[in-house]
């Protein structure tokens, strides 16, 4: 399988482990359901990135599922975190949004869905740490601006639209600066029901 998917690792790094300074996200070790949903979204036009969409156009659901499972099962070391360049106030705001959310904005804490360790929750919720800052910024920005979509109901779009650009930058700065503990994996199950309905996530409220 690794030989068949060399098309992916050209950008996503050897075995899909990416690098901490680039734009292309790590795919190794992400929950299979999340990877599968993203592959479907690129192929079917919910996510827009020409190279990905063209590459996946000739592939069917079964093969995309197999590709997702292949990368989800890889256990590889994570790159070093990116030292934050933002000021203390911004990093404090970032950490607060991650851990507590913002009740006034009706924004839930990241940890409520992405797991207490922020390593994601199997099978559908991705990790938020171990990712390049530029990538995090670009994705949250795209959700906010309507350029990235998930399966409906699109909970991340709802959350991102409540965030100011400064909040997105604060989140990306803080998240990209966190170290991924050795052997960290997605949590097996959500600690509590999701705070809002999310498409493509088994057990999500409707």
């Amino acid at each position: 399988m690794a030989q068949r998917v060399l098309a992916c690792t050209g950008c996503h790094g050897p075995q899909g482990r990416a690098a901490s300074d680039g734009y292309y996200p790590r795919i190794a070790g992400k929950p299979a359901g999340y990877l599968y949903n993203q592959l479907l979204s690129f192929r079917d036009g919910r996510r827009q990135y020409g190279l990905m969409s063209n590459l996946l156009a000739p592939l069917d659901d079964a093969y995309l599922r197999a590709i997702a499972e292949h990368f989800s099962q890889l256990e590889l070391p994570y790159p070093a975190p990116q030292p934050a360049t933002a000021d203390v106030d911004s990093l404090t705001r970032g950490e607060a949004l991650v851990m507590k959310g913002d009740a006034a904005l009706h924004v839930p804490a990241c940890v409520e869905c992405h797991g207490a360790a922020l390593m994601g929750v199997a099978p559908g919720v991705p990790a938020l740490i171990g990712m390049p800052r530029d990538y995090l910024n670009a994705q949250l920005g795209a959700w906010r601006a309507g350029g990235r979509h998930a399966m409906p109901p699109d909970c991340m779009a709802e959350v991102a639209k409540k965030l100011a650009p400064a909040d997105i930058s604060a989140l990306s700065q803080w998240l990209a600066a966190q170290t991924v503990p050795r052997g960290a994996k997605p949590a097996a199950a959500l600690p509590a029901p999701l705070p809002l309905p999310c498409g493509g996530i088994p057990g999500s409220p409707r």
Partner: protein
Amino acid sequence: MKRGLVRATLALLAIGAVLIALVAWLNLRGEDPLTADAAAPASAELIARGEYLARAGNCMGCHTERGGAPYAGGRGVPTPFGTVFAPNLTPDPANGLGRWSAAEFWRALHNGRARDGRLLYPAFPYPNYTRITRADADAIFAYLRSLPAVAQPNRAHTLSFPFDQQAALAVWRALYFRPAQPETDASRSTEWNRGAYLVEGLGHCNACHASRNLLGATASPLDLAGGLIPVQNWYAPSLASKQEAGMADWDVAQIVELLKTGVTPDRAMVSVSGPMGEVVGGSTQHLSEADLRAMAVYLRALPQAAADPATTSASAVAEAASAARARAAANRGGAKLYDQHCAACHGDQGEGAAGAYPALADSRAVALDTPANLVHLVLEGGFAPVTSGNPRPYGMPPFATVLSNDEVAQLLSYLRSSWGNTATPVSALEVSRYRGAK
């Protein structure tokens, strides 16, 4: 003086009227009267046959948007004159075929006219579909009528003036479109005739595999001498040339395998890509063995272009080979890029890997006159289509973000002059031209 002017004006008006009448007549000839549909509902057998034929015509390829409801339309066909959007073919009465009759559907395929009488743009390949039988058209119609209705509105074409005018289209049709009947060549086998019907008609192979004139017309549905697909800039190679994609010296079984699975592992790993990948994935992989054999028999028997002695004589071949070797030896940059990015899969000598990575040595695809497809493949990468015979195809990564135009040009020039390839070098300018293509 005054009388002369009046006479000249009258004469011009008369000529104009005759021309308009001629264009109108040329647009309406060969049309059957619209008859009422049979009252009996379509049988399951007819619907299944229609589904198969719709696959053979790859109707879905254009009439389904990326990720959209099947046959609900919306995909744009880019042309040099603007974009033509494929309409909704589901039975929705407001947007689809809900109010159409079988006779009107037949007129659309056979004569290129819509239900309301409007002339249709030939991006809808009715110059090919005009060869379909009425029985096959009725089966496809019965199948489309059996689909769930989807209320998806049609998108208006975005064509520039004067191409957005029905009058311009009428003139185009007067010049280039003739309704046809399926013909049987009694001197050929039944299999060959079936192949001709599929290739020239439903399969509309020459919508891509033929060159188009300034007004976007191909010479004839029988022309399969290769052409650059407008706007997309993929080159559909000639099926009638040994130097391109002619298959006169292939076995029927190999052609069938390529159309069925998208790859031929036993033949230095030939693999379809780009628009032909869509055709195999969406259409030919679903065809019966008998129909694929018929197409193969027809394609093998296509008259092959005569070899040009200026390039194929023994001395010309030896000279080209020695010049290519010299170019490859001088192209250190290209050799280095090849070793760094390509050799791990395609081999040190471009030998490829059977069943996985295509060979680049002695390759017709590498040596095509136009490097358009190579530029697409290097910049965008790609997978062969998923088919039942090749459910997990191997893929090539895109290099658009890794290699500059100059590097792509060096690399391709190296491939095109190495391991038996003797094709012309590629310039960075050419790469840049294709990089912009959709």
